[in-house]
C-alpha cells in the first residue's frame, strides 16, 4: 500500500459556523494505481490533492504514507517526505519564466543535493525521454502550452517520485494537447509503474485512470 487516508476531516470556521472542506474521507491507494478525482467546483478536489501532497494539513483523521504516519510528523519531516516521493503537476504549469527548460528541470535536483554530474545525466535523460532536447535552451514563454506542460510533467518526474499529483493538468490545453499529456500519463503509469492521482473535470480524461473518486461537498460518494 502506498498511502491510506482514514476518517480525514478538514474544516474552516467562518462566521461562527464550521464549514467542512473534507468530510470523513477514507481512501487507500496501492502502488501503480491511476486515480481520477472528479466533482463540481468547490467539492474539495484540490483540497484533497493538497492533503495527499502534504502541502496542506487536516484537522482530524489519520494519514499513512509508506508506513509513515503523516499526521504525527513535524513539518520538516513532512516536507522531506513529499520532496522524496511526490511530484506535482499544475494546471498552469508553474514553470519559472526566467529559467530555461533545462534549468527548470534541474531545479528540483538542486534542492535534493545531487552532484553536478548526476544532475546533468538526469536532466539529459529526461530531455531524451520526452524528446525535448532541442528545446532545452528555450524559455517557457517560447513554448506552446502543451510543450510547457510536457516540461512540467518532466520536472515532476525527474526526482523519480512514486506518486504524481496532477491538478487539472490539461485544464489550459486544447484537446489535441490534452490527449498527448493524458497518453503520457498512461504510459508512465503502465510502463514505469508510477502512481498517479489527477483532478479533472472531464469524463474523457477520467477514463484514462483505473479508478474514479467522486467528491461532493467534501464527501466521497
Amino acid at each position, binding site marked *: 500500500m502506498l498511502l491510506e487516508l482514514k476518517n480525514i476531516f478538514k474544516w474552516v470556521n467562518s462566521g461562527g459556523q464550521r464549514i467542512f472542506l473534507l468530510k470523513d474521507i477514507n481512501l487507500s491507494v496501492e502502488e501503480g494505481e491511476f486515480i481520477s478525482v472528479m466533482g463540481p467546483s468547490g467539492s474539495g478536489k*484540490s483540497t484533497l490533492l*493538497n492533503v495527499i*501532497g502534504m*502541502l*496542506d494539513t487536516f484537522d482530524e483523521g489519520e494519514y499513512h504514507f509508506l508506513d509513515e504516519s503523516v499526521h504525527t510528523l513535524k513539518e520538516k519531516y513532512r*516536507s522531506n517526505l513529499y*520532496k522524496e516521493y511526490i511530484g*506535482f503537476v*499544475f*494546471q*498552469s504549469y*508553474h*514553470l*519559472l519564466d526566467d529559467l530555461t527548460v533545462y534549468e527548470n528541470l534541474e*531545479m*528540483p535536483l538542486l*534542492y*535534493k543535493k545531487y552532484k553536478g554530474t548526476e544532475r546533468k545525466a538526469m536532466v539529459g535523460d529526461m530531455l531524451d525521454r520526452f524528446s525535448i532536447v532541442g528545446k532545452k535552451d528555450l524559455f517557457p514563454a517560447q513554448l506552446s502550452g502543451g510543450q510547457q506542460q510536457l516540461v512540467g510533467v518532466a*520536472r515532476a518526474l525527474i*526526482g523519480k517520485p512514486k506518486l504524481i499529483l496532477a*491538478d*487539472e493538468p490539461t*485544464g489550459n490545453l486544447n484537446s489535441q494537447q490534452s490527449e498527448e499529456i493524458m497518453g503520457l500519463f498512461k504510459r508512465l503509469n503502465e510502463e514505469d509503474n508510477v502512481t498517479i492521482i489527477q483532478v479533472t473535470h472531464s469524463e474523457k480524461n477520467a477514463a484514462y485512470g483505473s479508478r474514479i473518486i467522486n467528491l461532493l461537498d467534501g464527501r466521497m460518494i
Partner: protein
Amino acid sequence: MLYTYIKIGFRNLTKNRFFSFINLIGMTLGLSCFILIAFYIQNELSYDMQHENADRIYRVSQIQSGNEFQGTDRFAVAPRPLAPTLKAQFPEVEAATTLTLDETLLKIKDQPFYAQGLFSDPYLFDVFTYPLIVGMAKEALKDPKSVIITTSLAKKYFGEASPLGKTILLEQDRLLTVKGVVEDLPKNQHFSFDYITSYENYRYYDESSSWSSNNYHAYIVLPEGYDYHLLNEKMDALDVYTTPAYAQFPFTAEYFLQPLKEIRLYSNINFELGPVSDIKYIYLAASIAIIILLLAFINYTNLAIARTSYRSKEVGLQKVLGAKKRQVINQFMAESFLLTSCSFILALALAFLFLPGFNALIGSEIPLSFDDKAPVVFIIIVIGIVLGVLSGIYPALLSSAINPAKALKGKWLNSKTGISLRNTLVVGQFAASVVLAISSIVVYQQLNYVNKKKLGYNKDQIVYVHYKQTDFYAKNNVIKEALLQHPQIKKVTLTNNIPTNTEDQTIIDQWEGNTGDQNIQIYRNYVDPDYLDVFEMELEAGRNFSSQFPTDSTESILLNEAAVKKLGWSTAVGKTFGGRKVIGMVKDFHFQPFKLKIEPVVIGFRSKLRSYYSNYIAIKLELNDLENTLNHVKGVLNTHIPGIPFDQRFMNESYDQLYRTEKQFGQVFNTFTLVALFIACIGLLGLVTQKVSERSKEIGVRKVLGASIANIVLLFTKDFMRLVLLAVIIAIPIGWWGMEKWLQDFAYRIEMNWTVFVLAALLGFGVAFITVGAQTLTTANKNPIQTLREE
C-alpha cells in the same frame, strides 16, 4: 469630487498601515533633516546682516608676508592709526572705526563678574547699527568715563530700575557711568559684547599709537556700488607709515579689505574676534540636505510603485466602472498629497522639537523663534509641494495606464516596469549610506588617534586658573606655597601659557652659528622650575631650571627638539640663543592642535611680570576628595586676591575643547549615516516587497519542488546583495577621496586602511541582509498552496 479623492485616499493610507507608516516615517525623517539643515544654512548666511550698512561695511585686515602664525600669515588686526588715516586720506571712506574686545572684570554694587567689553572710538555707531533703547550712543563714547550696556546686562544687575546714571567699576580702578542701553545682539554676529566703552579704557591702550602695534580692529563703510578692490590697491600708499614702523622686523604689513558679510564664512585668519566657520561646511550641509531629501522622496515613489502592483485590481475595477485616466491620476495624487502634507507638518514640528538638540550636535546657536525662519519655511513648503507632486506623478501615471481586463485577472501590466530605475535608486541610496559610514569610521579613528597619541605632556589631573590681575604677580610665591599646603595638591607651577593655548610668538635673529641675517620664528613661553614636572615633560638633554642655579632666572633657556632641528644644531646644551644660554632640550610636545606640526618653542624663566601675556596657575592634584581640594584652591585665591571671581578649569576638558569641531563633525556624520541607512532600508524594503509579491508564485513552485526556507531567503538576498555590492564599489573611492581630503588638514593623522572599507561594507550588507531577509522570510514561510491556487 475632491472630498471623495481625499476620503478614499485617507482610507487607502489607513488600510495599508504598514506601508503608510514606513512611508510617513521615511519622508518625515528626511524632511526634518532637510528643514534643520535649511535653518542652519539660513543662520550661517545671515551673520552680521542686521547692520543697516551690512553690504557696505568692510574690515581692514593685514598680510604679514613671512610672519607665519598658526598656519597663516593673515591677521584680522589693525593698528590704532589705521582707521582715522583711511578716513582722512581716502574720500570714498564714509566712516571708519577702531575697536577691540577684551574680557574684563566689572563690579556692580560690590558684585564682581567678568564681562566682554567692546572698546571703541565714537565712530562705532557710524559703522555698525546697535539700536539704542535709552540714553545716548555716540556722545557716550567721547567720554572715557561713560559706558553703554546691553539690555540683558542691565536687567541682570540693575533689575527693572533704569540703569542710566548708575556706576560700574572697571578692573577695580575706573568708575564708569552708564549713559546708554542698547538692545541685546542677535547671536549671528562675528563678535559679541556685554558693554561698550571708549578704547581709552582698554587694558593695553597707550597715548602713542605705533603702526606696528596691532591691538585693534578697523572697520570702514564704503559708498553703495563701490568696488572695494579699488581701495585695496590704493591702500598701498600706506607704506609710508608701515615701512618705517616695521623697520626692525623681517616682514612688513599690507592691508586688505574683507566684506563684513564674508567674515563668518570666508575669512578664518589669525586673531578673529570670535568663532568663524567655513563656506565648505555650508556646501557640505547643503549637499547632505539635498541628498537626504531626494532619498526620502525617491522612497515615496519607490514604495508607491511597489504598491501599484497590489492595487492593480482596484484600478482595473475603477476603470471598468467608468473612471477616466485623469480621475485615476487624481486619486493617486490626492494620496501623495495627503501623505506629503502630513509628513511636512510632522517634520516641521519635529524640526522645532529637535532644534535644541541639533544646536548641541553641531555647536550652533540657531534661535528657536519662528519669525526669522518664515521665508525659509515658505521655501521649504514650495519645495515640499513640488516634490510631493513629482514623486506622486510617476506611480499615478503608471497605475492609470493599467489595462483593466488584465488588471482584474490579477496580472499587472509589466513586472519589469520601473525596476531598473528603482534598482538604480536603491544602489544610489546605499552608496550614499556607505560613503557616510566610511566618513563616520574615519573621523572616529582620527579622533581616537588624537586622544591616544602621545602628546609629550600630561593633561590629566591638572586644574588651572587663568588670571589677568597684574597685582597678582607679586603674590605668586605666597599663593603657590599656600596651595601646596593641601595634602592632595602635589605640584604647582606658574606659567605664561599652558600647552593647550600657546599664542606667544617671537622672532630671534641671534644664535650660535648664525653668521648672516637669518632669523627664526619661534613660539615662546615663560615658566617656573616646576613647569616640566607638573606637565610631565621630558628632557632629551641637559637639565631643567633650578633654584640651585641663581643665574637661571636671567641667563638660561630651554629649547624643544623642533627648535634645535630648525637651527641645524646637533647638540644644543651650552650654546647661546637670543643672548641666553641653552641649558636643556625638551622632547617635542603638542602645544597646538594636531592640524599643525610641532613648531620650535623656546622656554624662558619667568622672572618678571609680562602684562601683555596671559598668566596661569596650573595645579597637579589627586582626584580623590576633589571637591575639598578645589575648595582649598578657591579659598587660597580668595584670601590673597579678594573680590575677584576665579574660574577653575580642568586641563583635559580644555584639551577636548580643542577638538570640539572635529567631534561635532564626527557626530554629525554618525547621525546622518543612521538617517541615510534608515531611508535606504525603507527604499530597499519597497523594492523587496514588490519583488517578493511578483515572485510569490515562484516561491511557491520552488517550495513545492523541495526548496527550504533558507534556500528561498538566500535566493532573494543574493539578488539584493548584488545591488549593495555595486553600491559599495561606488562608495569606496568616493569615501576614500573625501576622507583623504579631510585628513590632509591634519599634520598628524591616521592612514586609512582596508578595514575601514570592510567595516562600512559590512554595515551596508548587514543592514540590507536584515531588511531583505525579514521581508522574504514571511513569504517563504507561507504555505505554497495559497500562492499557487488556481483561479
